[in-house]
């Protein structure tokens, strides 16, 4: 069964550094999402991406964040200048075409020191 994969599984960075989180969605999926989960808290929507552009973004998704699909397979989330409060699990998700379930990747744990 196809899976959503994410790399790295854990990223440690210094405050102010740039990080790029990568997701490889299931190949025929069209919608892609990034969510984050601060430790012990609920899952929060960051951004949705369809047809190579952002379709919706949350208030959390400010100018420090960007997404792109540079090569038609990887789907990346970039944080330009990380802050301590960016420490969280970041999940990539996508539903199959015409389907209803959202499949979540294993997540990247980001730790900002």
């Amino acid at each position, binding site marked *: 069964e196809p899976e959503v994969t994410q790399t790295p599984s854990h990223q440690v960075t210094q405050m102010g550094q740039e990080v790029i989180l990568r997701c490889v969605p299931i190949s025929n999926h069209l*919608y892609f999402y990034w969510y984050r989960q601060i430790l012990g808290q*609920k*899952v929060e929507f960051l951004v949705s991406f369809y047809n190579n552009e952002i*379709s*919706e973004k949350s208030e959390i998704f400010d100018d420090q964040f960007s997404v792109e699909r540079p090569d038609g397979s990887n789907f990346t989330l970039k944080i330009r200048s990380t802050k301590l409060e960016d420490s969280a699990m970041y999940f990539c998700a996508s539903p199959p075409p015409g389907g*209803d379930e*959202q499949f979540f990747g*294993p997540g990247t744990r980001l730790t900002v020191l």
Partner: protein
Amino acid sequence: ELKVEQNPLFLSMQEGKNYTIYCNYSTTSDRLYWYRQDPGKSLESLFVLLSNGAVKQEGRLMASLDTKARLSTLHITAAVHDLSATYFCAVDPQSGSEKLVFGKGTKLTVNP
């Protein structure tokens, strides 16, 4: 803005007992999801409920949706230790992008 509320947030129960987790949401939607999350892990899809009156069952878990009451329930029958996890409900606010808005989760602990 859609708000999703779950209760209880913490639930400790004994094996063999039954219990229900509730998920209320604030605006119209007919798409509701239940996920399970083990510590340090990702979200595992349990149920997708797409219409009023939908009921789905898998093993000891049964989920239902009442779109008029804006309420979904996750019923646990004869709990076993393996069901210990955090359970999240999530609602599609039907804003066009099919994003999900999550509740805070219910941390379930099943004691032997």
